[in-house]
């Protein structure tokens, strides 16, 4: 298992560096960081002085090699805008994104698993159709639209929650719902399918014959097996929440990594974008790895296989 984890860790690093290489060159080709920092109307001498100050006048491969050299020693460089080490900047903002991602995952679990279970226990009923309707709607609605709708409904029209910001737990309710809703369809469908399959299994029939019914049957025999694939998906979804919080954080003015990524990309703040891509890639691969380990822990057959 340790060898497996080490291999996956190495793979994560490889993915992160490949993505960073592509990002670095694409960002530099698509935009001029000096111009982006200086602003639209900056006179040429200001743009040139910024170019010289940040060493943007050096060839791209040299600059990338410089960055890579820094990363090896744990130095991710300094943000063009914030004038502080990127690592400290990312660390400062991580709290908000972790809070949001975990809250969103909780929302997903609280909606998707009960809904999927209800649908599986009542196949082809109105409950099943309602659950599928929720899944289809959640999949069809883009985050930014859902965000604005919940703001209008629950922050403006019925002012229960704040419109934006990240000062208290109340500020996270709407964004967590919006971010969490996007994962509901996948988790709900998987729960439903898994449970329907499990409920038809021989051991469930045996359990029924022994007198188990309802919640007892579900809890003690069906859910544990049905949720195995769901756990994998949840871990991957958590990874996606980190990278996918860009829109949600922007709409709700949450000062997390997603918003930092958006601002950095728009402003061509290359050192910050580079580190964020690195972090997102690592988190994503780590979450996949976690899913595999959890599956192995829960299902001995996987360990043996």
């Amino acid at each position: 298992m340790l060898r497996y984890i080490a291999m996956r860790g190495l793979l994560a690093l490889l993915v992160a560096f490949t993505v960073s290489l592509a990002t670095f060159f694409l960002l530099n080709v698509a935009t001029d960081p000096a111009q982006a920092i200086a602003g639209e109307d900056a006179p040429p001498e200001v743009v040139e002085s910024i170019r010289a100050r940040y060493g943007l006048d050096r060839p791209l491969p040299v600059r990338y090699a410089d960055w890579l050299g820094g990363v090896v020693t744990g130095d991710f460089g300094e943000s063009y805008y914030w004038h502080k080490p990127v690592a400290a900047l990312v660390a400062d903002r991580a709290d908000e994104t972790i809070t949001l991602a975990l809250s969103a995952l909780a929302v997903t679990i609280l909606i998707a698993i009960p809904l999927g279970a209800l649908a599986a226990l009542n196949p082809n009923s109105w409950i099943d159709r309602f659950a599928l309707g929720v899944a289809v709607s959640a999949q069809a609605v883009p985050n930014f639209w859902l965000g604005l709708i919940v703001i209008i409904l629950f922050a403006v029209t019925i002012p229960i929650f704040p419109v934006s910001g990240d000062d208290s737990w109340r500020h996270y309710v709407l964004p967590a719902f919006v971010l969490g809703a996007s994962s509901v369809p996948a988790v709900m469908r998987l729960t439903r399918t898994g449970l329907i399959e499990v409920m038809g299994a021989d051991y469930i029939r045996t359990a029924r014959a022994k007198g188990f019914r309802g919640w007892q049957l579900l809890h003690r025999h069906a859910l544990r097996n049905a949720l195995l694939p769901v756990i994998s998906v949840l871990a991957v979804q958590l990874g996606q929440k980190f990278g996918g919080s860009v829109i949600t954080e922007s709409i709700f003015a949450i000062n997390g990594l997603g918003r930092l990524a958006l601002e950095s990309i728009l402003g061509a703040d290359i050192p910050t974008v580079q580190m964020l891509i690195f972090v997102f890639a690592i988190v994503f691969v780590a979450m996949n790895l976690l899913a595999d380990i959890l599956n192995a822990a829960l299902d001995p057959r996987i360990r043996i296989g």
Partner: protein
Amino acid sequence: MQQLRMRDLCAASAIVLAVAIGPAQAGKNDDTLRVAMAEEILNLDYNYTTKREYIILAQLTDATLFNIDPDTAEIEPSVATSYEFIDDTTLDVTLRDDVRFHDGSKLTPEDVAYTYNWINNPQSESNASGVVERWLDHAEVTGPNTVRFHLTSVYPLVLRDMGARIMLRKAGTYDAGGTVDRDAMANRLIGTGPYKVVSFEPGTELVLERFDGYFGEKPAISKIVVRNIPDIGTQQAELMSGGVDWMFKVPLDLAESLGATPMAEHLSGPDLRIGFLVLDAAGYTDKDGPLTNVLVRRAINHALNTPEMAKFLVGGSAEAIHTACHPAQFGCDQSVTAYQYDPEKARALLAEAGYEEGFPLELWAYRDKAAAEAIAADLEAVGIDVDLRYVKLESLNQARAKHEIPAYFGTWGSGGTADTAAIARIHFADTDRNLSGDAELEEMVLAAERTNDPEERKKLYSEALGRIADQAYWAPLFSYSANYLVSPDLNFPLDPDGLPRLQNSSWK
């Protein structure tokens, strides 16, 4: 369709209910003006920043040697009480003796001289250095309230630069003890302006409080909170719910629709930014190309329906222009040749130039796609076969630097400076933006920066602008408008230079 109906229903319900609830009173009740800005505020020191948002904040937290009257574009005293040119390159400035920094210490001539000399020092790497290096040799203290500025050459905009660009700092701010700290004022600003910084969370929130020790007229509102809210829809929702009282850079349609409700007031004021079409008259892309023919360039000017572009595409207070500058700028002579919208005349001029069948034209643009498409459509209508290349600003800049652009739709905001110099030199002198290839014009523009005599400058700009119009080097298009949404409780005066001055706001 079902989803669309649901969305309409939600939006309609929201508006009806919000109207029923009525406008929020948050700002007026606690005498706090809450401002939304999409751009992240990361650094409070305007000596080390450039963007528009930072100019607005610098007006609140800093004072400069001079002020520029937004109505008349005249220079007014501020920290300086008076000035005197000893000769063309020596300027004496007398200072007030009651100016205090936000930490309570008194501003001295040493502080002023230090600030200017520091920004002029290459080690400072200040964003204002490019401006100051043009004219400053060094500054020296000459008395208890006087500073002498030694200029490298005649430079008529020296007082404007002092009024707009250089924020005063205490001596030693950036290099105390020999250690350079360019971010010394980035988070903990000590300025001399009407508001002082109470708290600052970069990228999130800035809290300002009226500074009792301010030497000038005290602002009416005691507290200003600037919140970074990147999404314009969220800003709108905050305004509707009373979370903010002021937002700017509002798209016209949104400003008009929300401004029509009791929840917000739509204000539209002028903006110094103008839009224009630059033509490669010099023939950099094709030395015998159609754009080198003045008749073709005049035809292009006649072909563009600029009044309708201003009215329907920009809206608000935008207007068609016919000069290569903003009408509110000093020296922007409006008596130059104006080309009325006349497609027939445009066709006739093209025929006279030998292009009765038109010609292919690669037109570049980087912003305001609708306006760029309108320009292309108007040119197509008179027979010019336009290939519109809509790119990022950086791509356009790179291609222009290589002289690969025959025509482009550009805009320029003059950095908020109401002087023709702020637009003329960069577009008609020694930069790659100058596609006129007219050395005589370049000389006129540069000559206007070699005299301190305002009348002489006006005369030179009149000549230059007249030549630009006669030769149709540009097709001037329209001025932009600045759209704001504000709380119905707020008095927010608009100035002709388009710079928002929150310090002049008050409650109704």
